């Protein structure tokens, strides 16, 4: 089967006006004829972006602000034409670049459902068919005939998303619509979007929320300054976005060995080891993990080693420092080389991918002396068997949790 969306070498050029002109005016364009044309500069918001989207894919689009995400979505939704390139679509596209487009504060909820629905491309009878479901989803039954200017912003948002949720187009393009709304409603939206993707429709989703992207999307596109490498898996895209596409280490990283006398202390090498002392980055959840940091103290001042753990969503989940040496005046470090090893116990974290950031701190006055925030990472593999005393063989992804930990339990029979 042919892909539902073929994006071929799409580029979009904007002209930046270097003069401070919010709007063009006739007088200016006449006077500009006599000026040199050197006041504008071309800016490529997108440059040769190509990728294909298969029917039923849920594709997450990520990138920094200004990377061209919104421009890409605008081109896909025909709001603005590309400067060059071609897109072949094999399905009706509905775009939700904003929730509640066309909402008018003076109109009632009922009227706005019809207005917004028809702007989004729904037929009148389609709206009528889904009307009760929309009102129910937004839970605004009581206020349906009140002008929406009297609605709370949350109610307006719910109503807007509810209309969009009942679009029946084959391709849905969604831009950050979940950035607002309370937690309960966000969950409802994510559930609805999950249903939509389950039903075999195609979704393109832009968000900065890595965890909702990862739970919803199977594929990902990373845009960097208008350039994209194409479709990869969502987790690869997120990793590249957060940590750059520097090739990931195999559990051993050697940093610049040059002693920099300006630095009070520096990290030279970090290893991830299993219980047998082998360098690895695949460890079972029930095994202990050892992180070995080789560092040098250039100043002779008090220095402590530390590690941070970050998960794939970019969320920092743990920080730990070695307080046995210099902290509180214990075991003074000298101008010399050290190897600090920390044990991360098994049956403590859940099966996932983790990034390790080794660091060096000075305790008094407290300051960060060195940190290596590169791609040092390990995967905790969850075999889900009797050795996993924290979870047993309980089949569950533990989505919202960062740790699945074996604690001391006691029980009494009464």
């Amino acid at each position, binding site marked *: 089967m042919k892909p539902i969306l073929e994006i071929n070498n799409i580029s979009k050029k904007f002209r930046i006006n270097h003069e401070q002109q919010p709007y063009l*005016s006739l007088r200016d*364009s006449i006077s500009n004829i006599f000026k040199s044309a050197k006041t504008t500069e071309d800016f490529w918001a997108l440059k040769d972006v190509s990728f294909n989207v298969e029917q039923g894919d849920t594709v997450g689009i990520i990138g920094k602000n200004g990377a061209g995400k919104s421009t890409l979505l605008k081109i896909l939704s025909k709001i603005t034409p*590309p400067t060059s390139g*071609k897109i072949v679509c094999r399905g009706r596209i509905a775009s939700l670049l904003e929730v509640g487009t066309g909402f008018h504060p003076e109109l009632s909820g009922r*009227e706005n459902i019809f207005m917004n629905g028809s702007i989004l491309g729904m037929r009148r009878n389609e709206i009528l068919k889904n009307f009760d479901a929309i009102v129910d989803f937004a839970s605004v039954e009581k206020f349906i005939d009140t*002008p929406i200017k009297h609605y709370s912003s949350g109610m307006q948002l719910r109503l807007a998303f509810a209309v969009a949720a009942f679009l029946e187009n084959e391709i849905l393009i969604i831009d950050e619509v979940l950035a607002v709304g309370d937690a309960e409603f966000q969950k409802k939206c994510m559930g609805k979007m999950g249903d939509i993707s389950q039903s075999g429709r195609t979704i393109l989703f832009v968000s900065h929320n890595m965890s909702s992207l990862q739970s919803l999307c199977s594929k990902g596109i990373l845009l960097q300054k208008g350039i994209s490498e194409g479709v990869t898996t969502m987790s690869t895209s997120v990793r590249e976005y957060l940590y750059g596409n520097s090739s990931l280490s195999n559990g051993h990283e050697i940093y610049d060995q040059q002693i920099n006398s300006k630095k009070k202390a520096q990290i030279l090498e970090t290893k991830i080891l299993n219980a047998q002392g082998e360098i690895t980055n695949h460890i079972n959840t029930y095994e202990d993990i050892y992180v070995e940091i080789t560092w040098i103290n250039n100043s002779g001042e008090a220095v402590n080693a530390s590690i941070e753990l970050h998960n794939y969503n970019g969320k920092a989940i743990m920080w730990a420092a070695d307080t046995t040496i210099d902290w509180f005046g214990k075991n003074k470090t000298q101008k010399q080389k050290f190897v600090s090893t920390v044990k991360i116990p098994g049956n403590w974290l859940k099966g996932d991918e983790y990034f390790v950031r080794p660091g060096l701190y000075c305790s008094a006055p407290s300051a960060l002396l060195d940190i290596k925030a590169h791609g040092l990472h390990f995967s905790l593999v969850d075999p889900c068997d009797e050795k996993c005393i924290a979870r047993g063989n309980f089949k569950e992804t533990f989505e919202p949790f960062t740790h699945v930990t074996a604690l001391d339990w006691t029980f009494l029979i009464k």
Partner: protein
Amino acid sequence: MEYEIKPQNKFSLGLKELWEYRELFYFFTWRDVKVKYKQTVLGFLWAILQPLFMTLVFTVFISDSIVQKTQLAIPYPVFALSGMLLWGIFSGGMSNAANSMVNNANIIKKIYFPRLIIPISAILVALVDFFMAFIIFIILLFIYKVQINYVALLFLPISILITSLASMGCGTLLAALNIKYRDVRYVIPFLVQGLLFLTPVLYPINISKNPVAQFVLKLNPISGSLELMRGMFLGYTINYEIVYISIGSSLFLFVIGIVYFRKTESYFADLA
């Protein structure tokens, strides 16, 4: 279904697409009509108060001299109001349409649909006002006991059509220009006011023998539609020469406006 998105190069009117989105005409018109008189005490009366007021002023202050000079056969208030109502379609439609794209910029930037729907709906709003005001006009006909030529009443739809086409032409042209040059916003009230006096709305076309004035008045697309509309008064003879010129000039304006709009519309979202 398969379609392509690529840089625009070929010109087309996109009628097929307009038809696919036909329901939007209704919704945009309905929204604007609904919102226009919300939170007003007089509501739809505003649609008639403005032309009625102008008619009143002209009737009181200068109708005598106009009637005397041109031997107007029908009561002046009826004559003036018929003109003001038709003028309302043109001026209201044109200024609504000219501002419509800028006013709906937030929608244009966020969603795609054929852009022409917006200015055309703005003109439909002016038509709704016209029909509302027309009810008052009918009452006025009874008050002045004006005799009606029922055959010529058939010209009324044609007259409305010519006015709408001219309004659409000017409206879409100004709307497209307004997106790029916000000067247009300030030109519109001035244009509407100026054109009112260059159109035989409040005076008959034979008011001046000056050839320049006659030339301007005859070329004006609204002159012909006014002729056709006033044909409904018994004893008013339609000058068909003016009607033909008006049909031509309104079609000319219509084509210019629509073509310019279609040619520039794909970049509206970038400029708005």
